[in-house]
Structure formats: structure tokens, C-alpha cells
């Protein structure tokens, strides 16, 4: 799992992510803390990608994005939205081919009238384990407007179409810690309160109470947006560290910025000896 973030401001786009990859072995969860989740499309480009969810397919994101960049050389995308659409096409082809068997198994389980407890757990794990998300952000000349588009591949849904981010900050993967920090409540906690039998108001009443305590985020100068993204990722990592939550987010925080007057730039990027230096 991941904490991935994107901030769209008038000056540009900030992308960020942690570096932990969770793998399941016969002995349980195993965490690798130097995975790459944030990429530039090509070299010297104006578009970047951050990913969350499923850790990979039979080709790495790095290779697939390099191939996409090669495609752009002969056939430029034109817009950030078009770049996201072509990325969706490319990933969808591999996603449906690589995961054909588990996707079919999920369909079968969902379609069964009754399921055993083991089948029910298998179904839930398949539903969540194959979710894969990307945020494609930046600008595409001659239009220097900063844009970001979200793509979520869901094993129960059709090929995703890019959804434009309209908000100043959006985050994915493990959203709850920052939901609580900024909005005072996450969806699961809200559902528990509403279903507790102790809340006599409406859901809108509860939202109104939380809204009073929500943190207000102004339109930020780009360096402050970088700070916000870093602070949110760091807080998510620390929420897991200082609790009994699994450390599914961690490792070096990576941040990139694409300002409307420059190309993709790294703000924080782990060096190639990062994993060696850890030990």
C-alpha cells in the first residue's frame, strides 16, 4: 500500500509518494522500502506519474513509461489528458492480460449465490488486491495550464477514463490518517458513528460538526504546496510507526514538482545507493 499525493496549484503540480512495497510471502507481509512510485515520463518532460495500489505487472512501470515516452516522440500526446488516456490504454492491455485468471476468479466468486467464509475472504482480497491507481500531472505545451488526471484500475470495472483533479490536494492509497487530520473524520469512522445508534442527527449534521473543525487550506505558493505534500506523506508514515498499524507506508519520501515555466524537477529523490546505505 502507499500514500500518494498530488497538489495542483496555479504555479504547477506537485507529486509525492512514500517508497514502501508490501509483498506477501509464506511467512506473512514483507516490506521493501526503496520502491519507485513516482516517475517522470521520459527525460526532460513536463509530465510525471505517481502510482498506488498494485505494485506491478509483468513489465515494470519504469519500462512501460519509457515505452510511452518513446511513443510520444513520434506521436505527441498534445494534452495532459491525452497523455493519461494513452497511459490508460497501455496499462489496461497488460492489466487485463496479466490478471485474466484472478479477475475471472473474482467474477465467479461475486456471481455465486452463497460463499464459504474462506471464499468470502478470498473475494475481498481479490477486490482490493488488484486495485491500481495513477495520477498523471504536469502541463503540455503550448498550453502551460497545470493539470492532473486520476486513473483507477478496478478489477470489477471497465477501462478507466482520466478524471481531472479539481482540488488543490488529492491523495490515495491509505487516505484515512490525513482525512482525519484535515477533515476531522474519515469515512469508516463516520459510518461507525452513524451506525452506533448513539447519533441522533443526520449524516449532514455530522458533516457540519466536522466541517467546523476541518483545517482550511488556502491556494498555496508552490514551495508551500511541496511542504504540504511532504508533511501529509510524512504524517501518514508516522501514524503507522507510532501505532499498531502495519507499516505499509514508509521508506524515503519522494517529491517532484512541475512548475509551468520549467520541466519536471525532483525535490526529493532517493539516490541509487539508498538501500545499501540503509543497512
Amino acid at each position, binding site marked *: 500500500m502507499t500514500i500518494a499525493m498530488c497538489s495542483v496549484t496555479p504555479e504547477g503540480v506537485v507529486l509525492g509518494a512514500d517508497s514502501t512495497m508490501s509483498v506477501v510471502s509464506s511467512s506473512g507481509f514483507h516490506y521493501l522500502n526503496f520502491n519507485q512510485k513516482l516517475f517522470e515520463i521520459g527525460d526532460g518532460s513536463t509530465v510525471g506519474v505517481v502510482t498506488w495500489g498494485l505494485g506491478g505487472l509483468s513489465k515494470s512501470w519504469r519500462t512501460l513509461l519509457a515505452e510511452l515516452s518513446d511513443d510520444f516522440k513520434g506521436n505527441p500526446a498534445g494534452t495532459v489528458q491525452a497523455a493519461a488516456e494513452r497511459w490508460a490504454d497501455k496499462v489496461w492491455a497488460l492489466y487485463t492480460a496479466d490478471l485474466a485468471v484472478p479477475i475471472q476468479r473474482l467474477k465467479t466468486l461475486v456471481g455465486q449465490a452463497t460463499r464459504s467464509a474462506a471464499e468470502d*475472504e478470498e473475494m475481498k482480497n481479490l477486490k*482490493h488486491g488488484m*486495485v491500481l491507481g495513477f495520477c498523471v500531472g504536469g502541463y503540455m505545451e503550448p498550453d502551460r495550464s497545470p493539470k492532473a488526471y486520476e486513473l483507477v484500475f478496478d478489477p470489477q470495472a471497465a477501462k478507466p477514463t482520466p478524471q481531472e483533479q479539481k482540488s488543490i490536494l488529492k491523495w490515495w492509497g491509505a*487516505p484515512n490518517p490525513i482525512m482525519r487530520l484535515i477533515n476531522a473524520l474519515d*469515512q469508516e469512522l463516520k459510518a461507525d458513528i452513524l451506525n452506533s445508534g448513539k447519533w441522533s442527527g443526520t449524516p449532514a449534521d455530522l458533516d457540519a460538526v466536522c466541517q467546523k473543525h476541518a483545517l*482550511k487550506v*488556502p491556494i498555496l505558493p508552490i514551495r508551500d504546496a511541496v511542504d504540504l505534500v511532504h508533511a501529509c506523506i510524512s504524517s501518514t508514515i508516522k501514524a503507522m510507526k507510532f501505532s499498531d498499524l502495519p507499516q505499509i507506508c514508509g521508506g524515503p519520501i519522494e517529491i517532484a514538482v512541475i512548475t509551468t515555466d520549467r520541466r519536471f524537477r525532483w525535490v526529493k529523490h532517493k539516490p541509487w545507493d539508498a538501500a545499501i546505505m540503509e543497512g
Partner: protein
Amino acid sequence: MKKIKNGAQPDPNGLVTEQQPTGWLAEMHKHFQRTGTYRAEDLERVLGDPREGAEVEATTDFQFGSFLAKS
């Protein structure tokens, strides 16, 4: 101030040592102890839905301040 022995934190009211998780939280811990993994439903409950992002709109309560000092 109480001295801490052998690195243990004092817990006079048993707030930490005697509170046992119940319900789905207890089940989550049991499952982890048994398998070394967390169930998808537990991760979603605690950390959020991987299919859904969360977002915050910029507030309009703020206005850009002037570079000129107010007299």
C-alpha cells in the same frame, strides 16, 4: 517523577497494558498473529479504501495579501 525500570513505561491505570482490543480489531490482530498478513477488509477499515482518493478544496476564506504595507 517516577523512575522507569528496565525501559518499561509506567502505566499506573493500566490504560495501555489492560485495554484489550475487541471486535474487528481483535480479529485483525488474531489474523495477523496467525498468518502474518492483514485482511483486505481490515486494511480498508483502518487505512481507507484503495479505490477512493480523498481530497480537499482550497478555501476561499483567504485572500492574497498586498505586498504594500498597510499604513
